[in-house]
Structure formats: C-alpha cells, structure tokens
C-alpha cells in the first residue's frame, strides 16, 4: 500500500508543472435524449401446476417514455488535461413522483502528455469490449434496447455487474500507431462491484455487507485494496476506424455474502456458498463496416473460482454473446438484425436468447428515428420440469443529439 501511495505522489509531482502551466478553455455543454414508445407482450409457461391453479401467465402493456437524457460537460485545460462529466436521467425522471433515476455516470480528469499515453482519474466507464464505454451513449447506437447486460434499464434483470466492469476509477490507456492500424491498450482499477458499496440502510445510517463498525459514508467501497476491480483491454483498430477488435480481461469479486440475493431459481443450500467469490471476466469483441455492411459482435465469459461452490458442485459460470449485422441502404437508413444468447448457471441452468430486427433512419445529423422488434426467450431447467418465458417488444423512438 505504501508503494502505491509513493507511486501516486511521484506521478502527481510529474503532473504539477503541467498543471501550473495549464490555461482554461471554454466548457462544452452537450447532450443526448432518447424518447420511445413500446409495446410489450409477455408469456410465461410453468412446467408444473402453480399454487394458483394454472401454468400460464400472459400480459400486454404499452408506454411512452423518455428513456434516457444525458448531459455532458467537457473542458480542455491547457495542452494536456481535459475534464468530462456525464449526468444521466432515466425513465421520465421525477424525484417528486419517484420515477426513474438520476445518476453521475462519469466524472473524470484525463492527462494526455502524448496521444499514446492517457491517464484518466475519476469515475469512468472502463475499456471492456466495444460497447462498455458507450453503453449509455444512445445517440451512437442504432438500437433502442441495447444488447443484454448493456441495457442499463434492466441491469438487475440481466445481472450486468456480473458480466461487465461497470465503473473504474483510474485508467491508463492509449493508441499506438503501427502502419495502417492502431494498437489500443487500457489497464484500469476500480472499486469492487456495486453491491459492496456502502448505502443508506432502512434506519437511515450508512451500511454495507462487510462491517458496520466504521461506516460513516455512503457511496464508498469498504473492501480492502486486493478486493478491487483490476482489468484491461488490448485491441487493434484500423486507422480509418472501419474495423476494431480486442480482447478484455478483468478480475474482481462477486458479493455473495447476502444469500437472499441469490437467484430465485436456485434451490440448493445457500449458507455454505456465502462469501466473496473471485471472478474473472474474459471478453472478445469485433466491429466495423465493409462497404455498406456494418457488423458488431461480442463474447463474454464469466469464470468463478469460489471454493465453496466447487465443494458443493454448484456451477456459477456465465456466458453472453451477441452479433449484429446491418446494411446501409442509403447514407441515412440502416437496417439490422441481431442475435444474442447466453447461459446463467448458478446450480440451475437457464438459457436465454434474443432475436432483434431494427432500423435507424437519420432525419438530420442530430435526429435519428429508430424502430426495433425484439423477441426474448428464456428457459429454466428445474430437473423434472422446464419453465419458459417469452417476451415480445416493439419499440419506436427518436434519438436526439443536443
């Protein structure tokens, strides 16, 4: 720990002359907004008779919503520093009505003495596969509903924090030119996953899952340094940005201390599994365009090394993958189809797949009309029977750059 402190002090010492020479530029204020209408038809079929005497549940609903509104602030300072802030409002946010959420998604200082070396400090989306850094930049995506764990509106349902490093706090990254390509690199460190972070308990006092004795604050990570998130990405990118691919890796811990938070479908013994489960995420991504064809694909495998789970023969590993193929019929119109699938195990195998077809039409450089059809299917095996869930969504919306 002393070594880390010394390194930070030396780094700060190196930065101070540049800070002193820094001159402020004006702050840019911009943003994005996505407003949608959706229709959802859900159908759940249980493999055995339920207590209420049936095996089927059907439901249909429709709603309008301001899906997301982001305010960005960006300010270059001097020749080497810049600051960036992303404030995110979700789902018709209203504190009065207790709708949606307001959150600080990114707030960081970047130091870039060279294009090959960038050091970001503050809350940031770490470089992991292709979509993690832009998961809430809806104006950059043709989708209304993002692929699985990247869909922030359903991050609890898709267990996003298992699949993705959601935030980091220090990242060293850069792009090294080599012939017709750039080699992208990033290494980052961040807090443990969100469920470890201290929050306000039902009694109004700060609390966390580890130790309440010395908890005075909310929003901070009570774990020791070796419990933090560590990770990185190594990638290759065409100089004209028509192709990129990369491999990502992270190590952190899954908070399995609160056994009531285990998936409902898990029917085995819970108490022996309680603890901090070491977890490695392995990611691979490629995306780009060839002529009018646009493509994106990602793969994420989450591997657990939790001794109690091994003893009890409970498989915790998870897999997620998706692929999108699009065709630009004109400069303004992109039609695409995508397939995504995955496997959550946690003792009971649950398979899911999602098929999507959609269109994005640029009405102007700042307004894009979007439409998306989604069919989500999930099957959960309970030994003697299988539960099946299917949900069909139709989304229509507009994405606006502000």
């Amino acid at each position, binding site marked *: 720990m002393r070594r880390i402190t010394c390194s930070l002090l030396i780094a700060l010492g190196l930065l101070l002359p540049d800070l002193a020479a820094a001159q402020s530029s004006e702050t840019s204020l911009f943003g*994005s907004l996505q407003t949608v209408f959706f229709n959802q038809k859900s159908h759940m079929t249980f493999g055995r008779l339920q207590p209420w005497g049936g095996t089927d549940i059907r439901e249909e609903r429709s709603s309008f919503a301001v899906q997301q509104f982001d305010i960005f602030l960006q300010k270059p300072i001097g*020749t*080497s520093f810049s600051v960036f802030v992303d404030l995110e409002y979700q789902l018709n946010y209203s504190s009065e009505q207790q709708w949606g959420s307001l959150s600080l998604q990114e707030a960081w200082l970047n130091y870039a003495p060279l294009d090959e070396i960038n050091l970001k400090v503050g809350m940031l989306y770490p470089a992991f596969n292709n979509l993690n850094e*832009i998961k809430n*930049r809806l104006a950059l995506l043709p989708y209304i509903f993002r692929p699985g764990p990247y869909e922030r509106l359903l991050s609890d349902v898709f267990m996003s924090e298992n699949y993705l490093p959601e935030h980091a706090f220090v990242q060293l990254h850069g792009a090294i030119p080599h012939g017709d390509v*750039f080699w992208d690199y990033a290494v980052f460190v961040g807090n443990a996953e969100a469920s470890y972070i201290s929050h306000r308990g039902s009694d109004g006092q700060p609390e966390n899952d580890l130790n309440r004795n010395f908890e005075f604050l909310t929003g901070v990570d009570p774990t020791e340094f070796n419990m933090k998130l560590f990770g990185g990405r190594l990638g290759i990118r065409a100089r004209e*940005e028509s192709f990129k691919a990369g491999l990502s890796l992270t190590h952190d811990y899954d908070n399995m201390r609160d056994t009531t938070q285990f998936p409902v479908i898990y029917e085995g013994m819970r108490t022996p599994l309680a603890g901090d489960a070491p977890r490695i995420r392995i990611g691979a991504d490629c995306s780009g365009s060839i002529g009018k064809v646009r493509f994106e694909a990602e793969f994420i495998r989450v591997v657990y090394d939790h001794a109690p789970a091994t003893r009890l023969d409970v498989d915790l590993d998870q897999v997620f993958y998706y692929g999108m193929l699009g065709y630009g019929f004109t400069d303004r119109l992109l039609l695409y189809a995508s397939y995504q699938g995955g496997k959550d195990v946690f003792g009971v195998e649950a398979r899911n797949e999602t098929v999507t077809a959609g269109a994005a039409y640029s009405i102007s450089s700042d307004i894009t009309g979007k439409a998306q059809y989604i069919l989500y299917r999930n099957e959960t095996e309970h030994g003697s029977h299988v539960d099946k869930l299917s949900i069909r969504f139709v989304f229509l919306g507009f994405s606006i750059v502000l």
Partner: protein
Amino acid sequence: MKQRLRICALAAFLAFCATSGQAQTVVIVNSSIPSSTFNVKELLDLYTLNKTHWDDGSRVTVFDLKAGKAKQAFYDYIGMTEEDLQRIWLRKQFTGRARPPHAMSSEDELVAQVGKTIGGIGYASEKAVRGKKNVRIIAKLKE
C-alpha cells in the same frame, strides 16, 4: 486588329476557365506549427481526431468546411465520407476523447480562423490562402 483582339479575349477566357476549373485544394496550418510535411495517413489521423497533439505538445484544433468543392476534394484525398467522419467525431465527442472540428461556412472564414488559432489546421482552395498571414501550406492535394 479586331481578329487579334478576339483571339486574345478567347485566350484570356480559356486561361480563366482553366485556372478556375483546377482550383487546387491545400491543407494549411497555423504558422506556430513546426515546419514539416504531412502525408495522407497523418492528415487522416488529424481529421479522425486520433492525433490530438502536435509534435511540440501543443493541442490540435481542427477546422472543417460545411460544404463546397474543397471539402469534397479533401475528404476524397483522405478517403473518408462525411457520414464516416460524423460518426467518428460523435463517438470521440461523446466519450470525451476530443472535440469535433469547428465547421466554417466559407473558405475565407476557415483560413482566418486557422491563422488566429495556435495549433489550428484546415483546408481550402489555394486561391483563398494566397497572401494570407499566419498560415502555412503543408500539403497540396493531388488533382
């Protein structure tokens, strides 16, 4: 005499047509930028905002034109379409990596801004650059 005048007028007209048709596009930088030549890859890196610092460490400020022949000639030269660049710029802007180029309405305005901005780079027809202070031509686009 009349015939000689007619020939001279025709020659002048043809010369005017030839020069105006050939409007050579040039890439210019603020005179603060250390003297060097730039190849297509380096111009591509500057306009895709992958190169954000000059070799002396100063920040690059990119200027673009809203429309015109010079814009088309420059985009063709670096091998990019307007849609490609817009997509790249939006991603860089929304991830905080760089600011998109300042889009100017006219070549004269662009040349003036590059001249005023330390670390500035832009492109225009050679005619618009001729005689302007504080700017230096770093590349002439092949016709």
